[in-house]
Each structure stands twice: as structure tokens, then as C-alpha cells.
């Protein structure tokens, strides 16, 4: 038995009840999304579960060019959704295909992945680069960026992540994702996501995130600055990659050494930017 101290399990059908159950449950009560991490944790501290599966939070909708994703959407459902396929040339399914195996993706959810905040999360760098907005509910709704979500960790405790919105991107925008991993289903040894926006052939905006360093994905402002104002030539891409190699701090863990990761950083940034450029070129008739 995995959760030996579990004494209560509830599956509310409205958000207010879910929040109440979470509060009343006290310290040992957790919200459960897909449950993969929670169940496998075998934690003795979990005495109560509030299952979010009854709240109709599994949907993927297009809203005026934006992709609105309910927190309980499984990674498989998002991967297979036509809305995700159409958003920025399918960069979201491209990332999701590299998350674990289909067996895991059939259980794990978008909201669960974001809240769990594993440093190797593949969703975090891409959704951060895309400028995702997160909606939290604790009796009232509030919306913020992924950064905001993680900044207020303490206040999260009474809140439910209900939705993620990938904003509508202007014409001339493209994104890409890259993951280096030891096997087809392992978590990232290093990952990278980039969003570029061009106007008349000039890059006017760039977002680059590198993660699993082994820390959680963070922006690389120097690499972004190396691209803005350029024509995204090979030289500009190389400058961005060099800046990232210099500025991204890496560490040792069981998957790789800091030195290995530092060698991977410019490769990941280069591949992301080249993929994004290819997508842009594909869009030009």
C-alpha cells in the first residue's frame, strides 16, 4: 500500500467545496490532480486527498488565438488536441512527446506538473517562454505568470490551479523546445525553450529558458539580448548560445555533472533557435 496513512478521500464537484475540503483537512490534506507523483510518493504525511477529477477542469479550448488549458487535462489529451497542434506550429505537442512515456502521460496532468514544480519539468520552460498565464482559485480567482505562481509558494497552500492560458502570439512568432535525456523516457538532463518574434526580418523579442540545470527553468536575459535587433543569422544565434553558456549556472546531480551540462547549454540554445527559425521560414509563403 502506497499511502498507508490516508484516512479521507473526497471528489468534490464544485470549486468552493474543493477549497473548503482542503482547508478543513488541515496539514495532511493534499489536492490530487493526476495523482502519479502523489501516489508513488508513498508519503506517510498524506492523511487526506481532495481529488480534482470531478471539477470539469479537463479541456483544451481556443479563445481568440489563445490556448486555454484546464488544469486537469492529461498530458496525452493536450498532446492530441487540435488546438495544441495549431498553436505556434505544434511546439506544445513537440514538447509533450518527450515527457516520459504514454503510460505516464495518460495519468499526469498539466496542472499537476506545474504545481509539482520538479526542476526537470519540460512544461515549465516552454510555457514560461510562451508567457503562459496561470489562474488560481482559493474562493476568489487570481491570475499571474508562472513566476508569480512560484513566488508565492506559501500562499499557494489554500489555492487550486484551475487553468493555464497560452497567449495568442503575433504573426512572425515561433517557438521551439529541446530536451537532452539519458533515455527515451527519463526526465531531462537539460532542457531549453525559446520564443522569437520578428518584424520585417528583425528579431524584436526573444524569450529563452534553460532548465534541469539541475535547477528549475530560468530565463537567460543575456542570450535574449544577443538576439534582439538582429536578423537571427547564424552569428547571432551563436552569440546567444555563447552568452547562455557563460551565464547559465549548472550543477552536479545523479544524471550529469555541471561541466557536462555547461557543454550542453549552447547546444540546446542553438538547436531551439534553429528550430524556431525553421518554423518562421515555413510560415513565409
Amino acid at each position: 500500500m502506497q499511502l498507508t496513512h490516508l484516512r479521507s478521500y473526497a471528489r468534490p464537484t464544485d470549486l468552493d467545496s474543493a477549497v473548503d475540503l482542503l482547508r478543513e483537512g488541515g496539514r495532511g490534506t493534499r489536492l490530487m490532480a493526476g495523482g502519479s507523483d502523489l501516489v508513488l510518493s508513498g508519503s506517510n504525511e498524506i492523511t487526506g486527498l481532495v481529488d480534482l477529477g470531478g471539477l470539469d477542469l479537463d479541456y483544451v479550448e481556443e479563445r481568440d488565438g489563445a490556448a486555454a488549458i484546464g488544469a486537469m487535462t492529461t498530458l496525452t489529451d493536450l498532446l492530441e488536441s487540435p488546438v495544441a497542434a495549431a498553436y505556434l506550429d505544434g511546439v506544445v505537442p513537440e514538447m509533450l512527446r518527450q515527457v516520459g512515456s504514454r503510460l505516464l502521460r495518460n495519468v499526469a496532468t498539466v496542472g499537476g506538473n506545474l504545481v509539482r514544480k520538479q526542476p526537470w519539468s519540460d512544461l515549465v520552460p516552454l510555457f514560461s517562454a510562451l508567457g503562459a498565464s496561470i489562474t488560481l482559485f482559493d474562493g476568489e480567482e487570481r491570475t499571474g505568470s508562472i513566476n508569480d505562481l512560484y513566488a508565492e509558494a506559501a500562499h499557494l497552500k489554500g489555492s487550486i490551479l484551475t487553468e493555464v492560458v497560452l497567449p495568442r502570439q503575433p504573426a512572425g512568432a515561433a517557438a521551439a523546445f529541446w530536451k537532452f535525456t539519458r533515455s527515451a523516457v527519463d526526465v531531462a538532463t537539460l532542457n531549453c525553450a525559446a520564443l522569437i518574434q520578428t518584424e520585417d526580418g528583425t528579431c524584436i523579442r526573444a524569450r529563452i529558458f534553460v532548465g534541469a540545470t539541475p535547477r528549475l527553468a530560468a530565463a537567460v536575459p543575456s542570450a535574449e539580448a544577443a538576439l534582439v535587433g538582429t536578423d537571427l543569422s547564424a552569428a547571432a544565434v551563436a552569440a546567444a548560445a555563447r552568452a547562455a553558456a557563460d551565464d547559465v549556472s549548472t550543477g552536479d546531480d545523479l544524471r550529469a555533472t555541471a561541466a557536462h551540462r555547461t557543454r550542453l547549454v549552447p547546444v540546446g540554445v542553438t538547436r531551439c533557435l534553429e528550430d524556431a527559425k525553421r518554423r518562421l521560414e515555413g510560415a513565409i509563403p
Partner: protein
Amino acid sequence: MIAITINGARCSVETELGETLLEVLRREGLKSVKPGCDTGDCGACAVLLDGSAVDSCMVLAATAEGKEVVTVEGLEHDGHLHLMQQAMVDAGGVQCGFCTPGVLMSGIDLLSRNPDPSEDEVKEALAGNLCRCTGYVKQVDAVLAAARLQAGETDA
């Protein structure tokens, strides 16, 4: 107690709250569902839950309330093997057999949504099923053959 449909039969199953679907299914006598790792890494415990292949070791039994579970015991129909089982046997994709139930589930999940997969798509679908014996080649062959069987084609 949870109400769960197992291999087409509605059951009322005793379960402790903290138990996984894997434990409950095996206690109900469905020994095809194998505990390979208990960490969600090997796929030996995979079953179909409302049509999707999932590792039953990471599913809390309580969350399966009102859902449909299919295990290998439920694949045979009227004395005939499911085409995925037949294809796996014909291709020689079974050695010790421990991973096989999970592989069948992943293969069935794939063909239910992609009836004409490429070899790469089959490999992607089976990525969560670890096999120590076969080297995977014949398992991939088997799923491709099952796709052809499902489409009603004869062997070329």
C-alpha cells in the same frame, strides 16, 4: 468499497483508501497485472482504464470508482485471443512473459487511436514498457502486424 467494471463485469471491490489499483486488481485474482517496479517506470502493471493504458501502480484504487478496467484476462473473446495477443505470439514477442501484459495494453491503446502507426510511432507507444528479454524488435513487429490484422489485410 468501490464500484468498478473489470473486464466487462460490474464489481463491488473492497479496498483500503491508500491502495493502488495494481494491488486491488491482483487481490481480485487478476494476476496478469504485474508489479514490476512500484515506481511507475517499467510498465509491467499497465492496464486499460476507460480505454487508456495506465500504470496501475500509480493510480489510487479509489479514483477508479465508476470506471472501466481491462486486463489481459479480459482480452480473450469467445475462446479466441485478441488480435494483439495473437500477433504477439505469432511474432515471437514473448520470452519470460513478465512484461507482456503491459506491452499488450500499450499496443491496444495505440491501435485504438492510431490504426496505422509507423514503426517510430509503435516504438514511442511502447517506450514505457521495459523488457529484459526480447530486445523489443519482435514486440514492435507484433504491434505492426496487429495493425494489419485489425485493418483486415492478409499477410503480404
